[in-house]
């Protein structure tokens, strides 16, 4: 009998990386809905199109917290173009897989990354 969550998911859930907010972020992405039981907020610090720092706040199940943690780990240090290539599958695979009914959490993580980058681009357009 396979366990519901992989060791890696449990580890990231237990010790999530990059929890919290960034003061004066360059981009913020908020996705999900408390009604559905998942809200993910991602904060980015971006310099020269490169993600210098990423943090998150999440309301959700074990998988939602673990995917948030892994997503921030995966995009830190990447250029925003590279970060946009990070798919939900990549987040799930980096966590050693997710149960089928929890795959939507990885989708949420991908959406949070995209939303934060879009927010960054929108802010830049305003400035220019």
């Amino acid at each position, binding site marked *: 009998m396979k366990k519901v969550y992989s060791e890696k998911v449990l580890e990231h859930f237990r010790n999530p990386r990059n929890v919290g907010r960034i003061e004066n972020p360059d981009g913020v992405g908020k996705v999900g809905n408390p009604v559905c039981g*998942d809200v993910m907020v991602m904060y980015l610090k971006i310099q020269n199109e490169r993600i210098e720092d990423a943090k998150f706040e*999440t*309301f959700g*199940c*074990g998988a939602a917290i673990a995917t948030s943690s892994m997503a921030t780990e995966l995009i830190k240090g990447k250029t925003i173009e590279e970060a946009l290539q990070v798919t939900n599958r990549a987040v799930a695979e980096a966590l050693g897989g997710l149960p089928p009914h929890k795959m939507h959490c990885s989708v949420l993580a991908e959406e949070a990354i995209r939303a934060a980058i879009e927010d960054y681009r929108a802010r830049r357009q305003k400035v220019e």
Partner: protein
Amino acid sequence: MIYLDYNATTPCDPRVMEEMLPFFREFFGNPSSLHTLGQEARRAVEKARSTIARFLGAKEEEIIFTSGGTESNNLAIRGIAQALRKKGMHLITSAIEHHAVLNVFRALEREGFSVTYLPVDQNGIVHPEELRKALRSDTILVSIMHANNETGVIEPISELAQIAHEGGAVFHTDAVQTVGKIPIDVHTLGVDLLSASAHKFYGPKGIGFLYVRKGIPLAPQILGGHHERGKRAGTENVPGIVGMAKACEIAEKEMEEEAQRIGILRNMLEEELEKRVPDIFIVGRHVPRLYNTSLILVAYVEGESLLLNLDFEGICVSSGSACTSSSLEPSHVLLAHGYPHELAHGSIRLSLGKWTKEEEISRVVMVFPKVVERLRSISPLSKGR
């Protein structure tokens, strides 16, 4: 390990196991066999039946052995629906039933029956007036659970049964959470059918029974030999039956004292948590409720992550109903109470039992606030509080 999930299942009482053991080896006979070994098993089964009947104020021939609560509910609901379909095609149940009841009604709807799902109030009570309004001339069955598995809230069964009878309908109750926990007399309760499961009260898994009042027609659902007076085919689970009877015997003797002791611990747990954790809600607090159950809604956090964090600390609890844990919808029970989705997502059920110790509750009230605080510090919802 601190086990606070007794509503999910209970450990088998060692005295129950002791009673069962001989029936795996020495007295392994098939109760349908005519030889001595078979007849010894038959005697054990009938003795157990009589113990259980006495425990409920029923007659021996009114007890049908099944494989557990789910089968009892299937047999009761389908059995009545099929037996009485010529009389009418309308059925009534409540919105907060266990899936072992709800999904049987949904299947019957697909087969052409019409089903009314009675609402509950904020406290989880099915109001007798709602039942009176829902009854129709073609209503054949009303099925309302005795106590809810998630909240522990106890429904006014005798009143509901009386109203169902006045309307000419048969009344069934899923008593899986109450048998063995509180005194039950089928006549006082006034029910026609009652489902129970042994593993919820320190008996083994895989055995339960359905009480069917004499004279109530019932179509069998498992066909085969003439076991259980033709109502449920299949060789009897002799060790299970003997174990379940022993569990009833023990419950009869110890129930009152246990209820007192566990009730004090449950109240202590709730009072302490309320003092230590802001923004929590205890469901059904001011209505009749099982003394061992506490369903707590924790704002700003999600139940599963709370459950897993408590598990890391060696505390076993459940989030809403264990059965709903692989679906994404929050508990249908809490939604029926009128709680908003986001609060329903944060439900945690602690259910105490025979081996719950005061030290364990003391540890839980220490650990629980820390775990909630940690999750709230991760949650974006809690910042504005």
